[in-house]
C-alpha cells in the first residue's frame, strides 16, 4: 500500500538504537545517552509525521504492510495503524523520550557507582529502554496474533531487567512478581488464541473480528473443541476469560492488580513513567483493538457484562480508596493509575451492548470509545509527568517520598509546586486541563449504556479529589518543614522539561479536537463494525 515500510522502520529504529548504545559500551557513556536521546527523538519525529500523514478522514487502517510468513499456518507479517494505532505510537514515542531524557536525573540507586558518578548511566539501561520501545511499537501496530504476541512478550523482558537491575530496595521481588504475573496472563491469552486458531485456522485480528461479528466464532469453537462436554456458551466464556486475563492483568482490572503498586513503586522513576505511561495502555489497547471486536459476542452476554462492569466499577472506586489509604507518593500514584484506567475499562465494557438495547447507542458508544482513547493519551501524559515530579522530590530529599515527610514546600519552591500542582489537577480531571474531556466522554457514553455502573464509578472522581487535595495539603501547604529549608526550586533545565508536558495538558484540555480529530473516524468505524 505504502511504498515506504514506515512502521517496520519505526519498529526497527529503537532496536538499532539499542544495539548502537550497547556497542558504544561503558567507555562512551555520554555518547550512549546521546544516541538514546537521538533515537528516541527520531522515533518521535517519525511518529508525529505518521500522525500528520495519517488519513484521519477515512478512519481506516493506513501504512499497511503485509507479507506472507508461514503460509502453512496462515501466519503473515501484517502491520498497520489507524487513528488508535497512530495515537498510541505518538504516546509511546513521547513518553519514551521523556523517560530517556529524565533518566539523566535519577541515578541515585544505581549500584554501578561509576555510572552514578558520571551522570549518564549505563548503556545497557538505555538499550533496554529502546528495546522496550521497539516492543511497544510492534504491539501497537501488529495485526496478526503471531507476531503481535511476540512483541507483547518482548516488551516484558526489557521491563523486567530494568526493574530488576535499577529498581529500589525491594526490586527483586517486585520484578519477579511483575514478570510472573504478566506472564501468567499472557499464557492464558496465548492458550485462548491457540484455541481460536485450532478452531478457525486464523491468527489475523481483522478476520477473527469478522468471524466474531458474524457470530461464527463461538460456534466454530464448539464444533472443533467439544471440550469436556462444555456447552457452547461455557466454552465461549472460558476462551474469552483466558484472553481477558491477559489484558486484565496488564491494565490492570481488579482483582488482578496486586502486582502493580509494588512494581511501580520499586521501578526506577523513568521506568515507572514508561510502565504507567505506555505499558498499561497495552492492556487497554488490547481491550479496544482485540477483545472488543473479536469477543464482543461474548462480552454482551448479560452475565458476563454485569460481572465485567462490576469489576470495572470496583476497580475505579476501590483503587481510589486504596490510594487514599497510602502514605507513599509513588504508591498513591500507582493506585491512582489503576483508578484512571478503570474508567477506560468501564467504558469498554459499557460499549459491549446490543445495538437494539438503547435507542441510538452509536453516539454513546462512540463517545465512550473516544473517551477511552483520549483518556489513554491523557493519562499517559499526566501520570508520566507526575511520576517524574515524584522522582524529583525523591532526589531532592534523598529518597523520601512519604506523605508526612514534607510540608509547606510552596514557600521555598513555588515554581515546583505550581507546575506539579497543575499536573495534579490534570489528574484530578479539572476542566481546562487534559483529563476532563476524556472522563466526560466516558461518562457521557457509559451512563447511557450502563447507568448504575457509571453512577457508582463517579465516586471514584470524588475520592480522587480527596486524596489529591490531601497530598497538596500535606506536601505543599501548611508550615514549612524546617528540614527542607534549603529545598531547591526547579532548575532551568527542569523547567524546560516540565513545560512541554504541561503545555500539552493545557492544549489538550482546551482543544481536544487535536486528538479526537485523528481518532474519531476510526472509532466511528469500530462502532459501525460492532454488529453484535
Amino acid at each position, binding site marked *: 500500500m505504502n511504498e515506504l515500510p514506515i512502521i517496520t522502520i519505526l519498529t526497527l529504529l529503537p532496536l538499532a538504537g539499542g544495539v548502537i548504545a550497547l556497542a558504544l559500551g561503558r567507555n562512551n557513556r555520554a555518547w550512549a545517552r546521546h544516541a538514546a536521546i537521538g533515537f528516541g527523538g527520531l522515533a518521535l519525529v517519525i511518529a508525529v509525521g505518521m500522525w500528520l500523514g495519517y488519513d484521519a478522514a477515512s478512519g481506516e487502517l493506513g501504512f499497511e504492510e503485509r507479507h506472507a510468513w508461514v503460509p502453512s499456518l496462515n501466519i503473515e507479517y501484517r502491520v498497520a495503524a489507524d487513528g488508535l494505532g497512530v495515537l498510541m505510537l505518538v504516546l509511546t514515542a513521547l513518553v519514551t523520550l521523556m523517560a530517556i531524557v529524565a533518566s539523566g536525573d535519577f541515578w541515585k540507586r544505581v549500584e554501578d557507582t561509576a555510572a552514578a558518578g558520571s551522570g549518564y548511566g549505563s548503556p545497557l539501561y538505555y538499550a533496554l529502554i529502546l528495546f522496550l520501545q521497539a516492543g511497544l511499537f510492534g504491539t501497537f501496530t501488529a495485526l496478526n496474533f503471531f507476531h503481535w504476541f511476540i512483541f507483547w512478550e518482548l516488551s516484558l523482558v526489557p521491563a523486567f531487567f530494568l526493574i530488576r537491575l535499577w529498581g529500589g530496595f525491594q526490586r527483586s521481588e517486585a520484578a519477579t512478581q511483575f*514478570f510472573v504475573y504478566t506472564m501468567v496472563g499472557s499464557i492464558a491469552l496465548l492458550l485462548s488464541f491457540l484455541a481460536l486458531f485450532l478452531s478457525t485456522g486464523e491468527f489475523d485480528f481483522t478476520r477473527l473480528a469478522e468471524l466474531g461479528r458474524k457470530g461464527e466464532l463461538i460456534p466454530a469453537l464448539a464444533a472443533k473443541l*467439544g471440550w469436556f462436554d462444555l456447552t457452547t456458551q461455557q466454552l465461549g466464556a472460558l476462551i474469552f476469560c483466558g484472553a481477558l486475563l491477559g489484558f486484565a492483568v496488564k491494565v490492570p482490572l481488579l482483582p488482578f*492488580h496486586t502486582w502493580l503498586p509494588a512494581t511501580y513503586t520499586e521501578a526506577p522513576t523513568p521506568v515507572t513513567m514508561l510502565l504507567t505511561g505506555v505499558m498499561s495502555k497495552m492492556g487497554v489497547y488490547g481491550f479496544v483493538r482485540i477483545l472488543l471486536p473479536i469477543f464482543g459476542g461474548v462480552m454482551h452476554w448479560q452475565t458476563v457484562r454485569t460481572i465485567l462492569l462490576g469489576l470495572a466499577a470496583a476497580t475505579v472506586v476501590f483503587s481510589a480508596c486504596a490510594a487514599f489509604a497510602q502514605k507513599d507518593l509513588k504508591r498513591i500514584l500507582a493506585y491512582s493509575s489503576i483508578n484512571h484506567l478503570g474508567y477506560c475499562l468501564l467504558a469498554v465494557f459499557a460499549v459491549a451492548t446490543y445495538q437494539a438495547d438503547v435507542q441510538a447507542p*452509536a453516539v454513546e458508544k462512540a463517545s465512550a470509545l473516544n473517551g477511552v482513547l483520549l483518556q489513554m493519551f491523557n493519562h499517559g501524559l499526566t501520570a508520566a509527568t507526575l511520576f517524574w515530579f515524584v522522582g524529583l522530590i525523591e532526589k531532592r530529599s534523598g529518597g523520601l517520598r512519604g506523605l508526612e515527610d514534607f510540608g509547606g514546600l510552596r514557600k521555598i519552591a513555588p515554581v515546583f509546586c505550581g507546575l506539579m500542582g497543575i499536573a495534579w489537577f490534570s489528574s484530578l480531571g479539572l476542566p481546562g486541563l487534559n483529563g476532563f474531556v476524556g472522563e*466526560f466522554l466516558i461518562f*457521557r457514553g457509559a451512563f447511557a449504556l450502563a447507568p448504575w455502573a457509571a453512577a457508582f464509578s463517579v465516586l471514584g472522581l470524588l475520592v480522587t479529589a480527596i486524596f489529591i487535595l490531601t497530598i497538596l495539603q500535606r506536601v505543599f501547604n501548611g508550615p514549612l518543614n524546617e528540614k527542607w529549608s534549603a529545598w531547591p526550586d526547579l532548575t532551568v533545565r527542569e523547567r524546560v522539561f516540565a513545560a512541554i508536558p504541561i503545555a500539552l495538558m493545557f492544549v489538550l484540555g482546551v482543544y481536544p*479536537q487535536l486528538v479526537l480529530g485523528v481518532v474519531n473516524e476510526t472509532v466511528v468505524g469500530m462502532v459501525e463494525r460492532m454488529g453484535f
Partner: protein
Amino acid sequence: MTPWIVKNLWLIPALPALAAGVSALLPRRQRTLSAGLAIGSVGISLLLALCAFANALGQPVEAKQYFNFAWFEFAAGDAGVLKLGWVLDPLTAVMLVMVTFVGLLIFIYSVGYMAHDENFTRFFTFLSLFAGAMLGVVIANSLLLLFICWELVGLTSYLLIGFWYHKPSAAAAAKKAFITTRIGDVALLLGMVWLYSETGTLLFYDNGGGCLEQNALAALVTRATSLGMTVSTAIALLIFTGAVGKSGQVPLHVWLPDAMEGPTPVSALIHAATMVAAGVFLVARTFPIFGSTVESLVADGAAPVSGALQVVTWIGAITAVFAASIAVAQNDIKRILAYSTVSQLGYMMMGLGVGGVAVGMFHLITHAFFKALLFMGAGSVIHGCHEEQDIRRMGGLRKYMPVTFATYAIGMLALAGFPLFFSGFWSKDEILHAAHGWPASHIPFYLGMIGAFLTAFYMTRQVAAVFFGSYRGGTHHGEKARESEAHGGHAPHESPAVMTWPLIVLAVCAIGLSVIGTPWWPWFQEFLGKHHEAGEGGGVVGLMLFSSVIVFLGLGVGWWLYGRRPWQRADEPDALEVARGDIFSLLRNKYYIDEIYELTVIRFNAWWARVCDLLDRWLWGGVVQLVSYAVVGLSWVNRMFDEYVVNLGFDQGCKRLTLGGKMFSRLQSGQAQTYLRIIGAGLVVLVILLIRGSRGG
C-alpha cells in the same frame, strides 16, 4: 444578524482570564502591573457588560440571543458534534453587570487590603482567573461550558481560601471547601450526562433544539425513571445537588464558614457576592427543567408544584432558618456574616422554589451588593483593629471608623430587611410574599419569617458589639492583643480611601436598588420575565406590615439584649448565654454538624480506605498468590506425572523427584527463571490437554 456584543460576549470572561494568564507569568515584584491588569480587564469587562445590558434592554422579554460553535467531534454525524456557546438574555445581562461591578469594586479595595502581602501579584492572578471563570458561568449557553467554568470557579475558590497556605487552618479549609463542593459537582456531572443522553444536547438554547426548549422538556417530563419520578425531576435534583454544594445549602453548608480563612476581599467577592450565588444562578438558568411538569407543558392545565421545586423550596427554607440561628451565637465577625450568607442563599433558593426566577434572582442581586458591602466593611474593621476578628474584642468603633460605621449600618439594615428604604427589604419581602401564596405548603413562609427575625437579631447583636459601647481590644491581655501592640497600633483607625470609597459606592447601591423591584414598579421582575402575580395589592401591604413588625421585633430584641448595656470586657459571657446556656452552646457549636460529619462521613471514608487497602494487601493479593501457587503446583504435578509415570524409569524418577523437591523449596526464592521453567512446562501440558480435548470431542 447577530449583534456585535452577542457575537463577542466571550470577551467579557476572556479579558480577566487573559489578565490572569499574563499575570501568572509576571515576576513577584510586578505588583502594580498585575493589579493594573486585573482592574483594567475587569473595568473593560464592566463596560462590555453594560453594552450587553443595554442590548438586552432593547430586546423583547424572553428573547434569547445566543452564539454556538463546535468544540469537538466525538461520534458520527451531527449528534456527535459537541457544541458550546454563550447566551445573552436578561438573566445573563443582570448577572454580568453585577459580577463585573462588584468585582471591580472589590479589586480596587484589594489594592488597599492586600498592600502588605508579599504574594500580592499571585493574589491578583487568582482574582482575575476567578472573575474570568465566574463570568464564564454567567454567559454559558451550554451546561457543559457552565460546568467547566463552575469547576474553575471552584479551583480559584480553593486557591484563594488557601491563599495563606502556611496556616494549617487555611490549608484545611481550602481542602474542605473543594471536596464538599466536589460532592455536589459529581452529582451535577451525573445530571449533566443524563441530560445529555436524554436530550442529545447540552446547549440551553439552540433554535428549538436546546435542552431548555419545548421539545426537550416535553420529552423529559413524560419519561419516567425506574425510581418512580420523572426524568426531569431526577435530573433537576442532581443539578440541584451541585447547587447545594456550591451555594452552601444544608447539608453541604459546612465548607462556607470555614472558607472565611481566606483574605476578606475573597470572602466578599467569592463567598458572599458571586460564586456562592452561582448555585442559585444555576437553578435559575436551568429553571425550565425544575419547573416543568406534564401538566404545565403537555396537558396545559393548572399545574401543581413540581417535585423538584418542592425540594428546592424546602432545602432553602430549612437552610435559611438553620444558618441564621447559628449566626446568633458566633463571635467571629466574618463567620457571622458567613452564616448569614448561607441563610440568605437559602432565601434565594426558597424564592426560586416558590416564586420563580425573578424572585430568587432579585434577592441574589440585592444580596450581592449589601453582603459585599458588609464583608468589605468587616475587612475594614479587621484591618483597623489590627487583624482582630473577634467581636468581643472590638466595640465603640463608631467613633474611630465613621465611614465604615455608616456604610456598615446601611448594609446591616439592608440585610435585616429594614422597611422601605433598603433593597433587602423589597427582595426579601418578595420571597415571603411568594411563599405566602405557595400552594404546596405554608411552612416555608413561617420558616422565612423566623429567619427574618433571627437575621435582624444577629445583625443587631453584631453591630452593637462592634460599633457601640467602648473599645475592648486594647485592654485584653490575650495573645492577639499583645501581637497587635507589638505591631505598634493601639487604637483602631479608619481605613484608607482606596478601601472606603468602594464601601460608599456599595452603600449607595444597597439603598438605590430598592427602586427597581417594588410591587408598584416591578421593573426587575418584568425584565426577567414572568412576573409572579400571587396576591392582591392589599395582601402585599398587609404582608409588608407583618414582616416589618417581625424585623422591628428582631432589631428590638437584639438591641435590648446587646445594645442597651454593651459588653464591658471581652471575656464577659454572652447575654443569650446567661439566659439559655444550653441552647446557646448548641448554636455556638453549629449544632455539632462538623463533629457529626467528622464522626460519620470522614471516619467512614478513612475506614473504608483502610479496608480497601487491607483487601488489596491480603484478600486480592492473597487469593492471587494462592491461585498462582495452585497453578504452579498443578502444572508441576502434571509434569511430574507425565515424565515420572509415563516416560521415565524409576531411578530417573527419583532423581527428578529430588530435583523437583528442591525446585519446590526454591519456589519462593523469587527467581524468575524458575517460575518461567515451571510455567513453560505447565503451558506444554495445557496445550497437550487442549489438543487431546479437541480430538476427544
